[in-house]
Structure formats: C-alpha cells, structure tokens
C-alpha cells in the first residue's frame, strides 16, 4: 500500500508531475475526440441536406 502512497506522492512533486501528465492526457485525448466528432457532424449535416433535397424533389 505504502509504495502506491509514495508513488502518488512523487517525492513532494506530486502536484507538478501529475498536473503535467494529466494535462498531456487531456490534450492528447481531445485531439482524438474532436476530429471524430467533426466527422460525424459532417456526415449528419450532409445526410440531413440530402434528405431535405430528396424530400421536396
């Protein structure tokens, strides 16, 4: 148990080390999630437009 404690404690630098890693994790994940979301929005918008076009044809 104590090794986990000391691991998290990081020899007193816990705040700096973990915020550095935490921020890196967030930025890396965001860079993956955002494009995927944009691609879905792209298809959704075009599908909606296709349906609107085919509906009033």
């Amino acid at each position, binding site marked *: 148990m104590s090794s986990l404690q000391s*691991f998290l404690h*990081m*020899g*007193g*630098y816990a705040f*700096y*080390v973990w*915020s*550095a*890693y935490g*921020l*890196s994790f967030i*930025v*890396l994940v*965001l*860079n*993956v999630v955002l*494009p*995927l979301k*944009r*691609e879905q929005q*792209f*298809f959704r918008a*075009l*599908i909606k437009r*296709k*349906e609107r076009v085919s509906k009033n044809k």
Partner: protein
Amino acid sequence: MFEYFYKYGSPRHFYDLSKMFVPWLGGICLILLIAGLTGGLVLAPPDYQQGEGFRIIYVHVPSAWMSLFIYMVMATAGATGLIWKVKVADALARASAPLGASFTFLALVTGSLWGKPMWGTWWVWDARLTSELILLFLYLGYMALQTAIDDRRTAARAGAILALVGVVNIPIIHYSVEWWHTLHQGPTITKLDAPSIHISMLVPLLIMALAFMFYYAAVVLLRARYEILENERNSAWVCELIEQRRG
C-alpha cells in the same frame, strides 16, 4: 515509384487506407505509451539533484521534439502539395497544424510546471522555452491564415508558402534566441537540459518519443480524413459514402 505515390495520393484511396491504418497505429502507440510511462514513472531511479520532479521530462522533452518535427512535416507536406499538386499532402499539412500547436503548448506548460519546483518561477526565459514560444506563434499564425482564406485550395497553397518561410526562419530564430540568451544571462544555472541522463532514464524517454510519433501518425491521418471529406464534399465518392451512411 512516383506512380505508386500518386495512386495512393488520390484522396479516395487515402480515405480507405487511413481507415485501415489508424487502428493499427493507435494500437502501437498505446503499447509504447504504457511501456514508456511504466519505464519513466516507476522503473527509472529518481534524479540525484531533482528527485522525482525530473519525471516531467518524459512528457516535456518528447512534446518539444514533436512540435519541431511536426512543423517540418507540415512544411514538406505543404511543399509537396504546392509543387506536385498532391491533394492528400495539403490535407496532411492542414491536419498537422493543430497537433503541432497542441504539442508546442504541452511543451511550454510542462516546461513551466517543471521550472516551478526546480527554480521557483513559473516561467523562465530560457533559450529553448523562448524558441518554443515563438514556434507556438508560428503555428497560431499558420492556423489563422488557414481560417482567413475561404477557398480551401488557395488556403492550402498559401499555408504551404507560410510553412516554408517559417521553416527557413526556425533555425535563424532558434540561433538568435540562443545567442540572445547567452548574451544577457551568460552561462547560468537554468540549464533546462535533461540532466546527465543514465541509460535507465534514457530508454523510457526514447520509448515515449516513439509513442508520440505513432500518436501523431494515427491522429494526423484521422484529421486528414476530415479535411479530405471537406475538400471533396461534392465529389462522387463522398456522396456515395453519404448514401452508405444513410442506408
């Protein structure tokens, strides 16, 4: 060889190819990331001077390397798109910019997070951090130019010119900032260099750098796919894709 490059340079093929490559690249990146993190955070002994705090280099240094590497890729991809009119290269260049900016931003923030415990101040006008900051301005300038031009083809080619001008200036800026740093502060203790690094510390660093490389490869393909869809929104194969999605 060129024929092969051109065939797979066509957006249609690239779109399918990237669908296949992204999961593989992502997988390799995850494995490397786990290996690098365990090596860096757990196995590597603490630094005799900086204690556990030095472990930030496993994120700071690879990000700094990547930020420079991505700008080089952006400039070459831009040049390829400009000279040989390879549409995929334009998409890759445009997709790389936000990633490069993210890595530069990460390098800056982790650099200051590392500087605070070591030298007591959040920001140190150290030569490399200052160059990194200027690199961030170059990325932001590139992205601002991309959004300012509506026509995507002109935007890609204007961006290519800007990236080439930037890539010529990066070594000049880097050298002049180094020169400026030594002129004003002289050789002082703010040596943000990785401390004299023992092999057990170096290996995780290289693994992390490789992991970031694969991460970049996977995500740039992901982003480039969207850019291509946006560029080719009226082409037949995109409409076909939409039908499939709708069906």
